[in-house]
């Protein structure tokens, strides 16, 4: 009588195809690479890939929260630099930065870095949620402003000579697993839990799926929109500090264009830019896909510019799949 069940199962199939499709793609690429390159499947290389993916992965997880609410955060790359520089200035043995009192314990430097990230996120969030400025514009402004603040703060110079304590989050390891990967894993698990198991997570999906309906149901869409930017900012700050710790020096040009890779990972992972639909696990697979492809092309000696082209193709293909899913409705 009705064809409801049919379109439902077709929908489900497409959803599964989309979610597991990228997983199959990832597995397939890994298989191909392990055949074509003898170095791919080595422990060292795998840890390499994971480590290199961690920073983008952390940014992408924050971006997922934002995109789920129909927003976008273009400022994460600049926040990476700002948080990196500010926290590094508290953990440096050189006298280059504007902070008196010598290097502080790592946990203080890290806390400050997180606060800087959350602060930037809060400003973006307030502008988007309270002043109804489109997210694209608000975070574009923050992208510029945060980068400017970074340059102002450090006088245009990098902050080198970071304390070993601080550097540990970038170069250390826990039972043989590099710290960036450990941190990424923790962020991933916590985010999955928050989005799937908490009331806040339900609110995020509702606020993105239909802000009107969510408001009428008593959810404060304004607050949700603010909080997701704070989350994105905090994670950008975290990523910035890991990056500085890894390189041993906080650079003013750190993080340039990082937001694009983060958005790419989210979109490839199946989260819809229209909001309300998407999963953190998808983002994880999206980030890994980008990381593995980059790594594979490196191993095969392909020029890095090709990597960019391939990444672009991947993003578009993922969105086309997303559109096909929406067309079913």
């Amino acid at each position, binding site marked *: 009588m009705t064809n409801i069940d049919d379109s439902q199962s077709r929908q489900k199939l497409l959803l599964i195809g989309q979610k597991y499709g990228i997983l199959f793609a990832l597995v397939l690429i890994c298989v191909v690479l392990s055949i074509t390159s003898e170095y791919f499947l080595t422990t060292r290389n795998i840890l390499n890939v994971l480590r290199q993916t961690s920073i983008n992965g952390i940014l992408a997880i924050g971006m997922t929260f934002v995109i789920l609410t129909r927003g976008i955060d273009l400022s994460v790359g600049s926040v990476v630099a700002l948080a990196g520089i500010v926290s590094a200035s508290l953990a440096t043995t050189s006298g280059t930065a504007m902070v008196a009192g010598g290097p502080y314990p790592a946990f203080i430097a890290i806390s400050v870095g997180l606060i800087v990230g959350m602060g930037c996120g809060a400003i973006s969030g307030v502008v988007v949620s309270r002043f109804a400025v489109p997210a694209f514009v608000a975070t574009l402004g923050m992208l510029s402003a945060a980068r400017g603040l970074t340059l102002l703060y450090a006088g245009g110079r990098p902050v080198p000579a970071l304390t070993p304590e601080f550097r540990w989050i970038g170069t250390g390891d826990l039972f043989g697993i590099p710290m960036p990967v450990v941190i990424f894993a923790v962020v991933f698990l916590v985010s999955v839990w928050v989005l799937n198991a908490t009331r806040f997570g339900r609110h995020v999906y509702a606020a993105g799926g239909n802000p009107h309906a969510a408001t009428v149901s008593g959810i*404060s869409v304004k607050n949700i929109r603010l909080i997701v930017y704070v989350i994105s900012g905090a994670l950008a700050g975290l990523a910035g500090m890991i990056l500085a710790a890894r390189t041993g020096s906080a650079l003013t040009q750190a993080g340039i264009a990082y937001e694009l890779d983060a958005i790419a990972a989210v979109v490839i992972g199946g989260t819809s830019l229209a909001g309300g*639909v998407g999963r953190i696990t998808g983002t994880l697979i999206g980030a890994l896909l980008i990381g593995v492809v980059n790594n594979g092309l490196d191993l095969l000696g392909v020029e890095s510019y090709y990597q960019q082209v391939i990444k672009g193709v991947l993003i578009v293909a993922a969105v086309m799949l997303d559109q096909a899913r929406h067309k079913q409705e």
Partner: protein
Amino acid sequence: MTTELLKVTGLTKSFSGVAALKNGQFTLEKGTIHALCGGNGAGKSTFLSIVMGIQKRDRGTITFNGTEVDFSSPSEALAAGISIIEQELSPVPAMTVAENMYLGREPLARFGRIDFKKMNANAQAMLDELHFSISATEVMMDLPVAKTQLVEIAKALSYRSEIIIMDEPTSALGEAEADQLFDAIKALRERGKGVIYVSHRLSEIFNIADSYTVFRDGQYIGDGAIADIDRESMIQMIVGRPLTEEFVKDNVPSTKPSLQVENMSAQNGVRDIDFCAHKGEIVALYGLMGSGRSEIFERLFGLSPYIAGNLLIDGVQTTISTPSEAIEQGLAFVTEDRKRSGLVLSATVRSNICLAHLDFLGFGPVMSTKKEAASAAEMIKQFSIKTSNDQLEVSGLSGGNQQKVVLGKWFLTSPRILLLDEPTRGVDVGAKREIYKVISDFATDGGTILFASSEIDEVLGMADRVIVLKNGRIAGELANADLTAENLVHLAA
């Protein structure tokens, strides 16, 4: 043969093995208004989409003006002389009325530029001919829903097609606008055009249509002249079983005040609103478009800012500034447009049902899937929501079932006061009665109901008292013997 504008026989269409339409049959004579009736899932939409070239049929013939046709796109149908006014309004919000009306066929001036002067003039002429007081240069998104619907109607009529299909054309219109539409439809009939009128509103059908065809469960059930059938028989054909009554009303209102509003002001010039709704009472708000019904609801529910007035719930002075405060006070609000503000279409039935009650379905900040599933199951049972599985997307449900999901969401919050804005809009006769029963039972159990409706029958059939609104003020209150259609229309106009 030459008087038959459209003849359809044996129309069959299946979607992946499930038949949506079997042997659909339909004949439209020149110069007639032909009603197409049937509940949700009856096959009306499938039938229309095939005629309009949106879908391809599996079997059957369609003859238009004596020649067999097979449209493969809506533009072909349009070019041949069939236009449609769709149920779902989808204008281009940032463009003007004229631009929307002439979308895709904008008149061109020299060098391929759009001749705005001509376009605006033609559009305005069409609107004036129909007596719709709309300016062709207004931007669509500034217009209220009713005017948007009028623009869509003007657009379809401007194609001067032989056949005009109208799918629920009065869903957003008040009495006066609907009358304007009916005048336009009658004028089409005089000119020998054919109108296929799809509506759930039986009073309209009996008012305007000459003939009818009924579909049910994808099958043709019967047709004939409106003059030869009465309302009960029509309902029986549509629903398939005799409905003992169309409305359900068993409640007896008490004298205990539940919701008291004093001197309230709301958006868009709504002022001096005073009324008192009692426990167990069903109060209707009746009025034309722009009379202020939705504005009153939105102020009561905290969706619009406070301007003036007092609110007392169970005799206690209260202020409500946000929906969550309203929900805490025991109010529930079923909005006029469920797709826009009632449901998260991309989400599941379960999550939609739980949406207003999330705070109570977990432990602190953590949700309990068990509690959510149990609550959803409870509401699905209580409202007989037709869905095979509560984890399916709610967008796949029929209009009536979607409305039940919205009701389920609100009943989960155990409200004392139910605000309903056009609760049976876009809902078929069978589901309508179920919703009336819900309303009646709620009032019988001591709840208070305030509902806004533009369907006179519904108001007369369900309300204990009617508050008539006009231009943002209360024009009068009617009850008992005074509650007649004439008085309602008289006060509202």
